[in-house]
């Protein structure tokens, strides 16, 4: 199997599994217990918190609170920010957020909140002027992702943070789920109040996430119950997952695989764009504006779902930006916000490389892909358009 879907989820690192194992076997206590076993568990949780804090550049370890996933962190951040400022009914977010933010904000729109949805340009870059103008005195929260899950496009968080501070008293939430482990993050130097991350995106297991809350930002607990996590999040701590998240954070900080991932992604992207005439990049050609591991490429006038099925036959795992649900075929909101034409969005494939990929896997993918695309091109009724593209390339 060649796994090029690392933005969906990642393999648990062996080092992470090893760190977790004792907490799946002999250390089974409750960190809230006062006895020796409880203290052992508590220590493991605090060590992990330290690792996460270091990875994201938190000023203080206590700013990290463990949650069950990225979506919980995003939901908590937004709902919590609104709950602490009941007089403010305005939210600023973008048109390209992950569902955890987008669908929540859509729901809030039906509950009396006004949402400003900031757009992007055709390369997926944020409309900064639109954002500036949307900020108001009654804005409760600004929620913006650091890296787009589909295209890998990065938003200038430091710049946005400054803008938010200058113009409002709103809380600034960043969905960092797709960026953590792939980019250096330094929250103490950014004007960020809330920051969501998820373990399984960087080689920790699924089911563990965290919310960074800048000191002084105090959100009500999203889950009502006990006094865990300093009274900020109820529910018995998921110690094995937390230990895994700590180990994955340490690994991401110390084992620098960014260059390898970047090289593999570049090899894949360059070769596809050079060799396949109807291939087109979704996102800025300037790679410093994107995650080092992601390429979102459209194969014009063919269907992404078909490409995915064919690649799957060869054991190659990717994602498509288009999804066919019974009678409607929705291209992704991100690609729609970028104004990607339908016949282009329809054929979009997201390749996301990870630390366990190697050169041979990329070459094998490059070996298989052109034949698949050729087969679908030969089947496409858009013969004229494709003929023109292929003639231009030749």
């Amino acid at each position, binding site marked *: 199997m060649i796994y090029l879907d690392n933005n969906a989820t990642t393999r648990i690192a062996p080092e992470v599994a090893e760190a977790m194992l004792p907490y799946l076997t002999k250390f089974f206590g409750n960190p809230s217990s006062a006895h020796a076993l409880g203290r052992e568990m508590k220590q493991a949780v605090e060590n992990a918190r330290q690792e996460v804090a270091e990875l994201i550049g938190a000023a203080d370890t206590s700013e990290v609170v463990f949650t069950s996933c990225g979506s919980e962190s995003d939901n908590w951040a937004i709902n919590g920010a609104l709950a602490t400022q009941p007089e403010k009914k305005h939210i600023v977010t973008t048109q390209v957020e992950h569902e955890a933010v987008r669908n929540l904000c859509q729901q809030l729109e039906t509950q009396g909140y006004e949402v400003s949805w900031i757009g992007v340009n055709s390369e997926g870059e944020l409309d900064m002027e639109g954002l500036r103008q949307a900020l108001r005195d009654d804005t409760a929260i600004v929620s913006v992702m650091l890296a787009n899950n589909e295209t890998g496009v990065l938003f200038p968080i430091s710049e946005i943070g400054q803008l938010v501070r200058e113009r409002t008293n709103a809380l600034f939430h960043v969905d960092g789920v797709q960026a953590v482990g792939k980019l250096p993050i330094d929250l103490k130097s950014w004007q960020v109040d809330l920051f969501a991350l998820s373990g399984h995106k960087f080689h920790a297991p699924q089911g563990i996430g965290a919310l960074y809350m800048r000191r002084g930002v105090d959100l009500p607990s999203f889950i009502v119950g006990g006094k865990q996590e300093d009274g900020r999040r109820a529910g018995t701590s998921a110690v094995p997952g937390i230990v895994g998240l700590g180990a994955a954070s340490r690994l991401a900080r110390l084992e620098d695989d960014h260059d390898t991932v970047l090289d593999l992604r570049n090899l894949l992207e360059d070769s596809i764009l050079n060799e396949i005439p109807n291939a087109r990049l979704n996102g800025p050609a300037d790679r410093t504006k994107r995650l080092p591991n992601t390429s979102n490429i459209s194969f014009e*006038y*063919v*269907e992404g*779902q*078909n490409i995915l*099925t*064919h690649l799957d*036959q060869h054991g190659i795992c990717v994602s498509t930006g288009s999804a*066919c*649900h*019974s*009678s*409607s*075929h929705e291209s992704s909101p991100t690609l729609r916000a970028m104004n990607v034409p*339908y*016949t282009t969005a*329809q054929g979009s494939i997201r390749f996301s490389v990870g630390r366990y990929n190697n050169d041979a896997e990329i070459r094998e993918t490059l070996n298989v892909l052109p034949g698949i695309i050729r087969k*679908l091109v*030969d*089947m*496409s*009724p*858009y*013969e004229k358009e494709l003929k023109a593209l292929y003639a231009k390339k030749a």
Partner: protein
Amino acid sequence: MRRHPRALLVEILLSSAETLKEHFLNPSNVGEAGEPRFTGRAVSVSCGAVVQFSVQVDQAHNILQAKFRAVGCDVLISASSLLSEAVTGMSTAEAANDVHSQSFVEEFAEIDDNRSACVALAGSALISALQDYSNTARDEWSGDDALICTCFFVSEQTIEREIQNRGLTTVGEVTRVCSAGGGCGSCHQLIQEIIDSVALP
């Protein structure tokens, strides 16, 4: 024996997952049929899929080749491939009768699931190609009596007579009595015009 008109598309819809997958991975009859070629297209506004069928028809009105091109989901491609195989060798009337889509797309869509719309779309494209054939055949017909239904070779005279003798008032009644209009459906408008003209005082 004539099958129930819905049978073919239902059979395709109920094909096994393995059959559908095999036809998706290695579809039959991709491309354009030979001359004389008649083509039709169907587009789904809801999902953006496009499928194009072309048929080559001989003097005896048999389909020698049925070919397709498609951009759409995996099911659409499998269905187009299966359909092209199934209608090759059939007469145009048989194929149209088996696949006729317009009248039952909605009902058919209730049978199952999210795949019915995709299968029906392939059927619509084929019907559209058969209508292209019928319209051409009707235009080129050089007999004394105008040919209305090119699937079942029913002339204007026959239809007029049946309407008058039996007091028929709808296209459906005409089809039941003399088969006219029971195939691709391209002559429904013409039959309606005959009904209207006969009914005039």
